[in-house]
């Protein structure tokens, strides 16, 4: 998933809570300030809603909620990372976006050695750079929401199924 250039991982680093995360730079579409977000009924709790990205409607996930951060203080440094995966755009709300990080491949530990199965399933690895820990995220798993429906969403699914079979 992650681009390895010259045995380096090129990731965009950002902060959620106290942690630094990274997504492959190739998945990044752009970084924007947080605009007005339109909430969508029935959406899972960590889906904040949709935004207008120059005429495109893009759904926005609050990574702070997704990663279980208790406090979400809206601040000036808050950003939306618009990422692209399989042609689909998605916004990720983060506390702040930092720089592009180049992590030598040797300094990345695969997630499986750190987490038990069933843990954070969207983490591909942990990178170490100048003593900091960077959690590397797998776009496919992060954006694939079918695996972890909230109970309410399952109800929606059933309702839709019932409606469809009529």
């Amino acid at each position, binding site marked *: 998933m992650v681009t390895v250039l010259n045995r380096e991982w090129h990731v965009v680093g950002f902060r959620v809570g106290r942690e630094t995360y990274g997504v492959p730079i190739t998945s990044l579409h752009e970084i924007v*300030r*947080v*605009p*007005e*977000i*339109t*909430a*969508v*009924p*029935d*959406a*899972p*709790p960590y*889906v*904040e*809603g*949709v*935004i*207008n990205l*120059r*005429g495109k*409607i*893009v*759904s926005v*996930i609050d990574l702070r909620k997704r990663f279980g951060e208790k406090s979400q203080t*809206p601040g000036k440094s*808050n950003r939306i990372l618009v990422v692209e995966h399989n042609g*689909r755009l*998605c916004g990720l*709300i983060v506390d702040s976006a930092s720089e592009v990080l180049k992590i030598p491949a040797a300094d990345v530990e695969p997630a499986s050695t750190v987490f038990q199965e069933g843990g954070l399933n969207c983490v591909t690895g942990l990178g170490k750079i100048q003593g900091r820990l960077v959690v590397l995220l797998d776009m496919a798993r992060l*954006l694939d*929401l*079918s695996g972890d429906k*909230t109970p*309410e969403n399952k109800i*929606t699914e059933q*309702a*839709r199924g*019932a*409606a469809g*079979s*009529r």
Partner: protein
Amino acid sequence: MSHSYDDRAGELREFFFDTAQELLQQLSDEGLKLEKQPGDAETVRSIRRIVHTLKGDAAACGCRELSELAHEFEDVLAGEGFSAGTSLAEAVFTATDVFAALLKAYRRKSKLPSVEPLRKLVQALAREQKSLPPKRARKKAKTSLPATWSEYEKLAMQQAAQQGRNVYHFTVRLDPHCAMPIAGRQLVLNAMAPLGEVLGTRPETGSTDAARKMEVLFASDQPVGQLATRFHIPTITSEVQQELLLEAAKPSRKEPAKAVETPAMEPLEASAPAVPVPSENILRVDAERIDNVLNLVGELIIGKSMLQQAMNEFSRRFPKDPARARFADAMAFQSRVLSDLQRSVMKVRMVPVEQLFRRFPRLVRDVAKHCDKQVELTLSGQDTDLDKSLLDAITEPLTHLVRNAVSHGIESAAEREKAGKPAHGTIHLKAYHQGNQVVVEVSDDGHGVDVRKVRERALQNQLVSAEEASGMSEADLLSLVFRPGFSTAEEITEISGRGVGLDVVQSVLQRMKGSVELENHPGRGTTFRLKLPLTLAIIKALLFRVEHKLYAIPLNAVAEIARARQSDLHRVDHYEVLQLRDQVLPLIRLGRTAAEDHKIFVLVIHMGERKLGLIVDSLEGEEELVIKALDDQAVATDLISGASILGDGRVVLILHLPALVERFAKARPQEAGAMTSGLLLSHAERHSAGAIPAVGGQA
């Protein structure tokens, strides 16, 4: 920009094919009219005009066979007193088909089809009217124009005069020694063409009459003196006389009724490239170019909101600066133009579904006649707008369904009477918007689908095993008609079962991310419903707020808007109701229950037979919205049919009313209490106790 001659000729040909299609459609419409009112002089005249236009255009584009045929047909039509009106209608239909076949052959540059059927009909008609007085002896028109000119030529004269050109009448005598009078006449016309427009000639163009005298109606903006000498061709012409018939820029009001018929004349003018073409109003544009413009408009709107923000900051910093007002004016002006621009671009891609529907009266008539049935076609919702590409894509499936409905759906007159139905079967075509979908329905009042027969057929063709079939519900069995392999080739002509090639219909619809549904009422009829999801559709919507969040519903769903206070609402077994005049309206609560003295609005909506009220906090007005699909899996919900971006960049969600009502209806009474906490509340709002301010509007 310069085009080579070939480019232009090709463009002209393409244009001709387009207008010719339109002409053929008009021809078939008039044919249907004639069939209903045989011998109606006005209809015959209008048919003749159409054929004449076609003739001229075809000749200009080098489609000689078509032009000749049209000419023959036109001559017959120019006669008077058709006693056998129906046979004329038949001839019109045959002509339409033959012309269409010819056009297709021209377009594909393939072998021309046989035109014998039309020739024979035309000859038969010509014989019929041999005994009647010749066409030139028709009663004189009220104008001062010479009676020898036909009505369309007179009309063309008047148009030319209105466009600021003089209309002349030239009498050209050919030199008695000229060996080829026909070619000679052509040469004279060629000499005229660069100086103006030839409106009509006697003898007519293409005529093989060897007459040495030619009369020409000619429109030109050239000065009077020059013309006659320019047209004199040594050794060919011996004398050219000119007479000014109509002077330019004096609009003739003598025949106001004729002005109405102008549209039929447009293509004729297009075939005369020497003059400006003011009434040409069809433009062929690549859809991609329009999309590009659309995207750019989107960017502009963002640019506008950026500018607006900068403006606000400027106003804050320099509250006393006189430039502020000027900025504000300019902004207001720009945003108005911008929203007009956006709307206009949106509309470019949309065409009314009428363009597709209008071909069906003829189709139904033909198929019904072929199957010896009496079928009436009714249409509704023709003005429903649909993206052009979608319209093109559903043409085939819809034609298929309509054909099917006539040949398989509607019973014979005898059968219908036995079943106590009117002998006339009815097929109804209907189009309407439903959320972000456009629905096109084909319904018939025939015998419906026999589910037992469907099962038999499915077993016979080994689509399902007997075991599977026994476990299938009626709906499941019905859906088998869409399976590939359900029908076989030999059944296309057979009248018994239905489901001929329905798998094709379904695959086309699926390719467009649409769907096809079958609603079956045994003994009473069938409805096929084509649903097309739209990424680009415009609806008029009512905007309102619930819990500070903006939503929209289609304006046409709103029957009325009532004001009320929370205290006016009653609670009946967990359901909230409002007494509105003499009826009790069940209410759907979208947000949270408000305080007792809180003012609310109730939007009364129609859902089929039922009326329901939606409780909303405030109204934001109505607006034309361009619907965008909200199909991202993270936010997909059946409550929302789409989203739209407002002029200021805000996103508004468009509620899908059927789903909303269904959700509401499905809630069991004990849950209905929970439901009153609001269908549109977010997860967090619904599960946390009481008053959490609405999410959204970060930053």
